[in-house]
C-alpha cells in the first residue's frame, strides 16, 4: 500500500507568554490509500493539533513546525504550498470534520447552500456546472450521507437539524470535493450513543464506497474498535503505541494503552468503583524529560523518568515506546514477577474486603429486621 499521508518527525510548538507549549513532539505516522487509521488519546495529547497541522489550519505566526518536509501528502511536502495551493488542497485532497457540527455550520445559511459552496469551490474549472447542477449534487450528497428527503432538507437551516443530522450535513460538505483523505476529529463526541453508531457506520460506508482514507480521531477506544484498521495511541504529544487494531486491543504493550482499555470498567473487588488512570496528563509547557507517561505509570522504573524510551517493534507493524517492551531486559522480568505477587496480594485483600462488606450488610439487615419486629410488637 502506498502511503497517502506521511508524517516524519513532526513537532509543533506554540509560543506563548508562559513559554513554548510543545503540543506535538516528534511523531511519525503513515496513512495508506483507503485505509482507516485511528488516533487515540486523552484531551491535550496533541491529536487535534496533528489534524490541524495536516490541514494547514494553524495560523502561521502562532506555531513552530520543525521542518517543511515533516508532512508529505501524495509525495508532496505540503508545508511548501502557497495559499492558493492550500485552498486547492483543502476539501479536494483532504477534508476535515470537526467535533461540534453547529460550530462548523453557518447558522444563517441554508444547509444546501453551504454544501453547494463546497462543490462550486472545487469545480471552478467546470463552467458548465451551474447553480442548479450544484444543487442536484447537493441532493445526491445529502442522500449519500443518509439524510431523508434531501430536497426539502437542503432548503432548511442548521437549527432545524438535530445534532446527528448536522454532523451528517458537515460530512456531506467534507466529501463534496471527493477528498482522498477525510480527517474526522472526534466526530461523535457531542452525540448520544444511538447517533454515535449511525455516524460511525456512515463514515465507514463512505470510506469503502469512495475508497477514501479516514483518519479517525477519538478519545474513546470503543468508538475506534469497530471502525479502524490501525490504531495509533498518543500521549503527552508523543506516539506511545501503534499497531493493527487487533494488536492494540488484544495485545496492548504500553501501560497507557492498557490503562485506557481498562478505564471505565468495573473493578471486580465487590465495590462499584471503576478502573481509572490516576493523575493528570502532563502539561505541554513542561513535558516530562523521560517517558511522558512515567509520572502516572504504576510500573515506572527510575530510567523511565530520566530517558525517553526507544520505539520497540514487537511484531510486524506493532510498536510501542516503553522501556518494558525492550526484549531481554532483566529488570523487566524481575518487575513482572513482582507485579505477579502484588496482583495476588491485591486479589486476596479484595476478597477480604468483599466478605467484610457482605458481613456488614448482613448485620444491617438483621438490625433492620429486629426493628421491624419491635414495631410489630408495639402495635
Amino acid at each position, binding site marked *: 500500500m502506498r502511503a497517502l499521508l506521511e508524517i516524519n518527525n513532526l513537532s509543533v510548538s506554540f509560543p506563548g507568554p508562559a513559554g513554548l507549549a510543545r503540543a506535538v513532539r516528534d511523531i511519525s505516522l503513515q496513512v495508506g490509500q483507503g485505509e482507516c487509521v485511528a488516533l487515540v488519546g*486523552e*484531551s*491535550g495529547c496533541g491529536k487535534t493539533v496533528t489534524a490541524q497541522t495536516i490541514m494547514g489550519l494553524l495560523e502561521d505566526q502562532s506555531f513552530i513546525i520543525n521542518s517543511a518536509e515533516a508532512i508529505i501528502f501524495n509525495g508532496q511536502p505540503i508545508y511548501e504550498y502557497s495559499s492558493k495551493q492550500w485552498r486547492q488542497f483543502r476539501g479536494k485532497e483532504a477534508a476535515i470534520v470537526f467535533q461540534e457540527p453547529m460550530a462548523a455550520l453557518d447558522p444563517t445559511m441554508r444547509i444546501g447552500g453551504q454544501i453547494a459552496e463546497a462543490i462550486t469551490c472545487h469545480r471552478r474549472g467546470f463552467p458548465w456546472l451551474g447553480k442548479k447542477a450544484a444543487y442536484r449534487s447537493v441532493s445526491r450528497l445529502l442522500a449519500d450521507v443518509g439524510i*431523508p428527503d434531501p430536497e426539502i432538507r437542503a432548503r432548511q437551516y442548521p437549527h432545524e437539524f*438535530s*445534532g446527528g443530522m448536522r454532523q451528517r450535513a458537515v460530512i456531506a460538505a467534507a466529501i463534496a470535493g471527493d477528498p482522498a483523505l477525510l480527517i474526522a476529529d472526534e466526530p461523535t463526541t457531542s*452525540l*448520544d*450513543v*444511538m*447517533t*454515535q*453508531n*449511525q455516524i*460511525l*457506520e456512515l463514515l465507514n460506508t463512505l470510506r469503502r464506497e469512495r475508497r477514501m482514507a479516514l483518519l479517525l480521531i477519538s*478519545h*474513546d*477506544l*470503543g*468508538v*475506534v*474498535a*469497530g471502525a479502524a484498521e490501525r490504531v495509533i495511541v498518543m500521549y503527552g504529544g508523543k506516539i506511545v503505541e501503534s499497531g493493527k*487494531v*487487533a494488536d492494540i*486491543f488484544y495485545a496492548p504493550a504500553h501501560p497507557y494503552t492498557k*490503562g*485506557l*482499555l481498562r*478505564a*471505565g470498567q*468495573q473493578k471486580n473487588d465487590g*465495590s*462499584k*468503583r*471503576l*478502573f*481509572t*488512570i*490516576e493523575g*493528570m*496528563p502532563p502539561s505541554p509547557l513542561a513535558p516530562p524529560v523521560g517517558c511522558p507517561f512515567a509520572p502516572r505509570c504504576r510500573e515506572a522504573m527510575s530510567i523511565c523518568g530520566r530517558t525517553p524510551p526507544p520505539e520497540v517493534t514487537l511484531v510486524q507493524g506493532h510498536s510501542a515506546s516503553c522501556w518494558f517492551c525492550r526484549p531481554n531486559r532483566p529488570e523487566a522480568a524481575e518487575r513482572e514477577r513482582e507485579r505477579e505477587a502484588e496482583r495476588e496480594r491485591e486479589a486476596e485483600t479484595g476478597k477480604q474486603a468483599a466478605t467484610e462488606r457482605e458481613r456488614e450488610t448482613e448485620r444491617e439487615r438483621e438490625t433492620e429486621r429486629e426493628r421491624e419486629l419491635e414495631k410489630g410488637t408495639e402495635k
Partner: protein
Amino acid sequence: MAAALLEARDLCKYFYEKKNVFPAVERVSFAIREGETLGLVGESGSGKTTCGRVSVGLYKKTAGASLYQGRDIHRMSKKQYFDFTKEAQSIFQDPYAAFDPRQKALDIVAEGIDIHRLAKNGGVRRRMVVELLEKVGLREEHASQPLTVFSGGQRQRLGIARALAVNPRLIFCDECVSALDVSIQAQIINLLLDLQASRRLSYLFVSHDLTLVRQISHRVAVMRAGRIIETGETEKVCAAPRHPYTQALLAAKPIADPELEAIRGREKLFLTPPEKSGPVPGGGCSFYAQCPSALPACGKAPPPLLEWEDGRQVACYQVS
C-alpha cells in the same frame, strides 16, 4: 421502605412557542430515596434534562408535582425555596459553560457558602473551600488560580466542590461526565460513589449512556419522547431489558473489542436507530416507527406504564 427524598408525581413540562405546544416531559413519576441514585437515561431530545430540571425547580412545571420531603417545590415560598437550594444542588454538563471564566476557583466554590452565609469570616471561608478542593482531588494552590488554567476534568471537580459546599442531600447531575475523557470519567464516577458512601448523598443522574448509568445508579428510568418507558432496579433492567428501546439503547454503546464490534455491526443494522425524537404525530408509542416487534395497536395510543410483579414498570403493549 424509607420515605422518598425527592418525588415527582405526574410531572409535565410543555414548552410553548407561538401556537405550537411541545410536550417535553409528559406525566413522569419517580422517587429518589436517601442515599440512592436514580439514573435518567435517554437520547438527546428525550426530555431527560428538562425532566431533571423541572423536578428540582430549575424550570417551572406545567402540571403535576415535584415533592421534596413531601413539600411541593413549585409551591414553596421564596424563603422555603432558598432553604431548599441548600439541600439540593446541581452539577451541569458543560464544565466550560458552568462557571464565570473570570472568577478564581476560590470564589467559584465559595458561591454557595456566600449565598447561604455559612462562613463567619474570610479565613473560615477559605478553609472550607480548601477542604472541599481536597475532597474532590484538587490541591490548596488551586484555590487562588483563575478558571482558565483548569482542564475539563478539573473544572468538573470544581463543579462538584461547588455543589458540595452547602452540604446538600441531593445532587442533580446533568450529564456531568459526558464531556470528559473516558479515564477522567471513571475518576469522577468514583468520586461521586465515594461521596455517596460517606455522606449518604442522593443523586439524580441524567445521562445518555446506559452503561455508565449502570455503574452508578441503584434504579434507572429510561425516557423517550418525554415519557418514561421503562423503570426499575438498574441491575434487573440492564440484565434483562424488556422494552425494545431499552434493548436498543444497551446494544448501542460501542465496545472496545474489535471482534465483538464486527459481530454487533451486523446486528445493529437490524435495529435502525431513531431518526426523530419528540412526540409522535399519530399519538402512538414513540418507538413505533423503529420497533422491530411493533403491533398495530402501538401506532394508535401510547402504551401505559404498567407495573410488573418485580417492581419494574414497562410501557409496551408487546411485553405486557
